[in-house]
């Protein structure tokens, strides 16, 4: 009975909050605007709390890995040491995340590591493209032809082979490619609206236990 009441209350709060925000989209009202702003502020505070919970989850996961001497536990040790160091650097300076030490770690450790991992995509694109362009069906044949035209249309060699290849490339990108992408975007937009409405109407309750 207690659980049922709690569930109904959570659904009622969701519906009420959703309707308030939706009303603010249609009606210009100072009171509604302020309510929406307060709700957005609350959402930001909750997101910050979630970040803290997330950090605790990361610490718990890696401590478990170290304690169990699971494969790769040494990396977990490095992760926790790095996490602790950055937190200490942040707290040791009144400027917090804007402190020179934290900025240094961000600029000279985080950014290069991120760039290094992201640089792998160049090689991964090559192997993924090879697989995607293998002619196994009519679809992949069409994709191969379109891909070759677009690739050759961007380099001087393509112009040397066929002087109208740049125009063909532009046509592919402007018409079939854009049409396909817009079709997907429209479908996703409709799906998003219906998902939102299902939550608003209490049909989907991902937040209710």
């Amino acid at each position: 009975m207690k659980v049922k009441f709690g569930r109904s209350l959570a659904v009622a709060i969701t519906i009420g909050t959703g309707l308030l925000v939706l009303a603010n989209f249609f009606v210009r009202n100072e009171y509604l605007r302020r309510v929406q702003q307060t709700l957005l502020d609350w959402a930001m505070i909750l997101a910050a709390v979630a970040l803290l919970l997330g950090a605790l989850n990361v610490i718990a996961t890696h401590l478990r890995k170290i304690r169990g001497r699971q494969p790769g536990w040494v990396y977990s040790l490095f992760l926790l040491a790095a996490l602790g160091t950055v937190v200490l650097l942040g707290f040791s300076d009144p400027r917090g995340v804007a402190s020179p030490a934290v900025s240094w770690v961000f600029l000279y450790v985080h950014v290069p590591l991120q760039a290094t991992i992201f640089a792998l995509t160049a090689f991964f694109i090559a192997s993924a493209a090879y697989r995607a362009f293998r002619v196994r069906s009519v679809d992949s044949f069409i994709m191969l032809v379109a891909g070759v035209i677009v690739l050759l249309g961007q380099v001087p060699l393509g112009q040397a082979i066929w002087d109208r290849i740049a125009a063909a490339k532009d046509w592919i990108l402007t018409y079939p490619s854009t049409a396909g992408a817009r079709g997907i975007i429209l479908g996703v937009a409709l799906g998003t609206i219906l998902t939102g409405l299902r939550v608003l109407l209490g049909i989907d309750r991902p937040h209710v236990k």
Partner: protein
Amino acid sequence: MDGIVELLRNSGTSERQALMLVLLLLVLPLLALFAAQLRAGKRITLRPIRAFERLGTLIGQSAETGQPVHMSLGVGGIVDPSTAESLAGLALMEHVATQATACGAPLKVTVSDPTLLPLAQDTSRKAWETHPYQYQVQEPEARLVAPDATAYAAGVMDILLGERVAANIMVGRFGPEYLLMGETGVKSRVPQVVGAADPQVLPFVHATADEALIGEEMFAVGAYLRPKAAHIASLRVQDWLRVFLILTILLGVLLRSL
């Protein structure tokens, strides 16, 4: 067309507000009507989507081998525009967690956005608690890898390479970092089911996934896997609205051309 825009401007209504109002006025009655028809016994045949059909096989293989299923909810959260995609991933996760717990397949769920973590943990716990012999089966594990998209991709790559995963299911918001994870899955010979909505990521999904949920298919999870009248009605409304939009576009083209 210009007349309608002028009329809207004079009444203080923006085009976005008018469009949303029209959509809502269309959606709500249609949703109620279709749900009532389905409750009255009307039967709807849904076209088969191979990605949904494949899930059962993958979970079964995981139960047989004892190797875990990895499920990624993407890099989106629930307080930004990626909410709908994250909720679609969460709906699929609910099904996967229930099935995995029912047949004793280990499940590892990873998220990148901390706002999604409590929901993922709650969903996995719910699936575990509903199992009749819950203490004999492993509770699905939901964990945060990293709030940064690239770092998250690196963490997932490590799981796919090092944890002998039986299947990789990824549904949610993904950016270009998807390729790092998808391609690692291919190289580790892990069967993959992937759902994404971003048109720029879909070519990568096509190249790396065994089965793909493309765009709006992601939002059909409820209708296919938890077939309640309201979910199937919602899918029908989506189809009808699509037809309405196509006809509106065609009418617009005709009016402009004539």
